[in-house]
């Protein structure tokens, strides 16, 4: 099922489907790119940032940034 990264739940894994153009350069250096598998580590309450795991590295992204990344969630 395709959804926004921000909509993933704790521990859920997924493959990045698309990243909004304006954002691609910014997240590329962190290893986040189309086709990459990632896992949701935590979500902070009250619209706080998310932390995702990519290649055993943790990256924190604001919720607005996570809204612009689409993932295919794994069941």
């Amino acid at each position: 099922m395709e959804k926004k990264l921000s909509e993933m739940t704790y521990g859920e894994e997924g493959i990045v489907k698309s990243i909004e153009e304006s954002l691609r350069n910014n997240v590329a250096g962190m290893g986040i790119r189309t086709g990459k598998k990632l896992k949701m580590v935590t979500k902070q309450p009250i619209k706080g940032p998310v932390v995702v795991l990519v290649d055993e590295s943790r990256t924190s992204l604001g919720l607005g940034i996570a809204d612009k990344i689409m993932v295919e969630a794994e069941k």
Partner: protein
Amino acid sequence: MGLSVDERWDLIDKISKETVTFGKYKHTLKDAVGELTIKPLTGIPIAIAVLYGLWSFFGSFAGFFTDGFFVSLFDEHFLPWIQSVFPDKGGWLYYIFVGDPLADNCFEAFGVLTSGLFIAIGVVLPAIIAFYLILTLLEDIGYMPRLAVLIDTILHKIGLHGYAIVPTILSLGCNVPAVTASRILETRKQRFIMMTLLAIFIPCGAQLGIMEEVIPDTMGYVLIYLLIGYFILGFILNKIIPGKSPEILIDVPPYQRPMLRNVRRKMQMRIVGFFKVAIPFVLLGCAVVNILYKGGVIDWLANVMSPLLSGWFGVPDETVGPLIAAFLRKDLAVAQLSAIPMTSYQMITSVVLVSIYFPCVATFVMILKEGWKDLLGSVAVLAAVVFLYGGLIHLIGILLGVA
């Protein structure tokens, strides 16, 4: 001949497929602790505990050395000695360097070599060492990015994001390196908000140390007023300053065992850096204020400023002296305030005023280095804030019946 982002990653995937094999990764205790400290349910209580620990270590370490060692060294040995050997009792030089010949402690003497040295070495040095020790450990372990993630939501409301906690906490040691650290924020708007907030509302380690020593009972109220001011002003600045406030995007590195040599070097550099800025200004501040007192300038200013000071802010007119000293050093100003007789609410108000009304001269110069336009903006904001917030605190005092 540069590749696009996607082309570059495609190439890396190809290279990686041919050269790297990822074995089964076993999660370790370090990973488990890493997750506990970043998940909100466990992470937020841990963060509060860490900050509380930082605070109580700061207080007890500094108190231990100041009260247990420096107070007796300065008051019982150094002060009587310098009072007896310094020539020309009652002369100008004596007044400037030693101060009141009848004083029996270094707080009330107010000479450059008595109060000045005592504040710098006896009070501020232990406070700064305690603060930087904990801060450096937290940094080198890798805790700061986690704190940034946990606090992001709150700082987002004032146009910043979680990583702004780095300059904010650094500023509790000294505002000077914190101004440089505000460069880790993405936009000019964010950097302006950060610099202005820390110049106005964050007390530095020297000031915290002296407050802990001279006004331990009312210090909590001062900090609450400063904290509330930090968020109110941040909220307003975020609304009125044009520009973007990008969201947090940071790497959260694994925990590391701090390398002792690195911690030592970093602390050494920070403490030396701090004192290069602090000592000359503490001594200069003492001298300038003494000269102004002796020349009658302070009394004259106290008269002229009376409507503003006792009328609008509700503090004694004598606070004009410490307010002048605060241009140079906040720690010195707080020490001087503590010697002026006033009610405890007036003490709270005047310490808040001393904190917010102007960044110390070293911070001022640092902000100037980041750009004079930003400096002018900060100063304009500052003038408005001091006038309004100072008046507001007075009003609250009147409503509570304590002013």
